[in-house]
Each structure stands twice: as structure tokens, then as C-alpha cells.
């Protein structure tokens, strides 16, 4: 089977549509993962043993099971209990929860790296727990972990094709529908690969910039 450039030109607009959804899902998923991760990290440090244990186990469970099955769960099981979500929303929640458990570890490392003196100084200044977190610890903990967080967001980008399994019309799903319409798999699937390679190479360049901007990360 030969590569057909005319066909490529014909299907490119459809695939670009898909790229937009892919990028949108990644961005929304990243925001959710950043928030969920912070929530998990804070809950695991909570003095309330019941809370920190429960959250710890839940995070462990989410990290040990496949994202695809979690997406199915959100998309097919939750309607049984009356929560009906549009595919994209279900996908973003799935991505955000799954990667939130990974970013939680990044937050944990970042928070542990804030020197003890800062905690003691906060106490000496008579700040309460909430003030200590929001004015002292988090502003110092976050910049060094930005590169590590970005790393997970790039990984998330590469998981977005799974959303096609719950009928989100992202890049992979557009490519599959094009392929099924014209009975040509070579161009659509190869182009999807090329798109991902280009997007992830761009994001790696961005990552390098972030690493320079926010100092070195520990490997």
C-alpha cells in the first residue's frame, strides 16, 4: 500500500479537530490532576489518622489499576447511581484522578524539601496551620517541582487516546473513524503517531525551559 498525499490533505482538517480535543483534554486533566494531587498530599499529612490512611489506600488503589478500566467505570457505572457525565467530562475526571495520585507524590517530595526552619519560623510568627500552608510552605514548595509535574502532564498527553474508548472524539477516534470510512489505515494512524511525536517533542522543549527557569530537579 502506498502513501497518498492527496488523501493526507483530505483528512488533515478532521485530524486537526481531534488534536484540539486532545490538547483540551490534556490541559483540563492537568489542572484537575494538579488540584487532586495537592489535595491527596495534604490529606496524607493530616494528623487525622483515619483520613490519611483512607486517602493513602485509595490513592494506592487508583495507581495500581489501569486508566482504561477507570474510565469505563466512570462512564458506564456511575450512570447506574444517577451520575450521567458527558464523555469529555468523564475522560477529564478519569485523567485528573489517575494522574492526581502520581502528582501527589511530587507534591509530597516538594513539601518534604521545604527546610524545617521555615516551619519553625511560621510557628514563631504565630501563623495558624492554614496561614502557614498558604503563605509559607506551598509558595516555596511548588516552583522546584514544576518540571516534575510537567513530566506527568506530558505522560498524560500520551494517555489521552484512551478517551476514544469512551467515545470522546479526540485525535485517535477521529483517525479511526476516517480509517473506517475510507478503508485506509496507513495514513491516519501514521499521522496520529506523527502528531503525538511533534506535540511531545514541543512539550519536551518546554520542559527543558521550565527546568532552566525553576532550577534543577533531583533525579
Amino acid at each position, binding site marked *: 500500500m502506498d502513501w497518498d498525499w492527496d488523501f493526507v490533505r483530505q483528512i488533515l482538517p478532521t485530524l486537526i479537530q481531534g488534536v484540539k480535543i486532545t490538547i483540551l483534554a490534556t490541559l483540563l486533566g492537568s489542572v484537575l490532576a494538579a488540584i487532586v494531587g495537592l489535595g491527596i498530599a495534604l490529606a496524607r499529612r493530616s494528623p487525622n489518622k483515619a483520613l490519611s490512611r483512607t486517602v493513602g489506600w485509595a490513592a494506592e488503589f487508583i495507581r495500581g489499576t489501569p*486508566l482504561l*478500566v477507570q474510565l469505563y*467505570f466512570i462512564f458506564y457505572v456511575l450512570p447506574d447511581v444517577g451520575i450521567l457525565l458527558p464523555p469529555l467530562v468523564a475522560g477529564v475526571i478519569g485523567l485528573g484522578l489517575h494522574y492526581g495520585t502520581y502528582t501527589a507524590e511530587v507534591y509530597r517530595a516538594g513539601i518534604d524539601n521545604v527546610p524545617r526552619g521555615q516551619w519553625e519560623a511560621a510557628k514563631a510568627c504565630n501563623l495558624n496551620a492554614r496561614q502557614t500552608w498558604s503563605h509559607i510552605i506551598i509558595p516555596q514548595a511548588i516552583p522546584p517541582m514544576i518540571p516534575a509535574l510537567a513530566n506527568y502532564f506530558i505522560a498524560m498527553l*500520551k494517555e*489521552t487516546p*484512551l478517551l476514544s474508548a469512551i467515545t470522546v472524539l479526540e485525535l485517535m477516534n477521529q483517525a479511526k473513524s476516517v480509517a473506517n470510512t475510507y478503508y485506509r489505515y496507513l495514513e491516519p494512524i501514521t499521522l496520529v503517531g506523527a502528531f503525538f511525536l511533534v506535540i511531545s*517533542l514541543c512539550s519536551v522543549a518546554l520542559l527543558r525551559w521550565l527546568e532552566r527557569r525553576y532550577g534543577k530537579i533531583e533525579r
Partner: protein
Amino acid sequence: MTQWSGYFGLILQGTLVTIELTLMGSVLALIMAFLAGMGRLSRFFALRALATAYIEFFRGTSIFVQLFFAYFVLPLVGLELTPLQAGVLALGLNVGAYAAEVVRGAVQSIGREQYEACTALNLGRWQGMRHVILPQAFLVMLPTFGNNAIELLKATSVVSLISLADLTFQAQVVRAQTGNTMVPFTTILVIYFILALFISWGVRSLERRMARGLDGVRV
């Protein structure tokens, strides 16, 4: 009341396929990891370039796209693969690329003095690697390999989309036949989690075993 025993058999079959895929994928990934990881440390530019291209390509594109490429596009160039072969190939090559960086990092983390000792003992490059460097580096690699194996286990759920009857696929079958979504998906989430726990337990005990006799050598 639905007859669950028959469906339980389906899930069990799916579990066996998932385990089979994980094992075969891990073996291929391990081989590729050592080939590519050693390739990146090679003295020859061509080998280094080849290994880097392999690693960057497979880490840069999504596992999902690679699987579809292996299953739908390779037959067009005359390479007919069964779903199982396509699955093992895509999983092994993808995870192998990640693990290759682990191999490289671990080998480079072994101190200079070990290499100097090899030279002093008049060991060749290969002998030094085989008897001195790799036995120590392998121990450094093991924990990360364990994580990679869990990633591979989770990635196997994707092969259900190319009609391979793994755990996720069987859950979909049960869902289609019974109309019940909660039971099959919760069951397979738990099974995946147990498999993941089993892998991390296995790697930990292997690590303890391999560390025997190396007390005082490791820092």
C-alpha cells in the same frame, strides 16, 4: 438473579490472558531495555544514535497509537500479526524504551572506582560489565523495573481494544450480556490491583535475595 458462575469463568480466562501478556511483554521489555540501554553507552556513534532514536520514538508516541500501528498498519506492509503478537510487541517495545533509560542510569550510577578496578584487574570491557558493573547495577534497576512492570500490567488493558480477550475485554462481554456494569468492572479493578500488589511484592523479595552478599558494597 444472574448466573454469575459462568461469567466468573470468563473473567478468570481474561485474567490468564492478562497475566500471559504481562509476562511475555516483560520479557521482551527486559531484552529491549538491556539492548537499548547498553546501546546508549556504546563507544560507537551508530549504535548510540540507533538506541536514542528507538527510545525517543517509543517514549514520544502513545502506547495506544503504537498498538494500533502494529495491528492495523503492519499487515499492509506484509507483516501479519495476531492480536496477541501485536500486543506483546507494542507493550514490550514501549515499556522497553522506558526501562532502557533505567538501565543506562543504573550503569552510570556505579562509581568510577569500580571501572578503575576492572582496568587494574585487566578485565576487558565486556568482562568488566558482565562480572563487576551489571551485578551491582541490576540491584539499582530492580525497584524501577518493578514500577515499569506495573505500568506494563496496566497498559495491557489497552489490548482489549484490538479484540484480544483480556480482563478488560471480558468485563465488557459480561457487561454486554448481563447489563450489569458495577459488578464486572469492580471485580476487574480489584483483580488488577491484586496483580499489581503481587508484582511489587515479587520485586521486593527478589531485591532482598539479590542484595545478599553485597552488604557493605552498596552505599
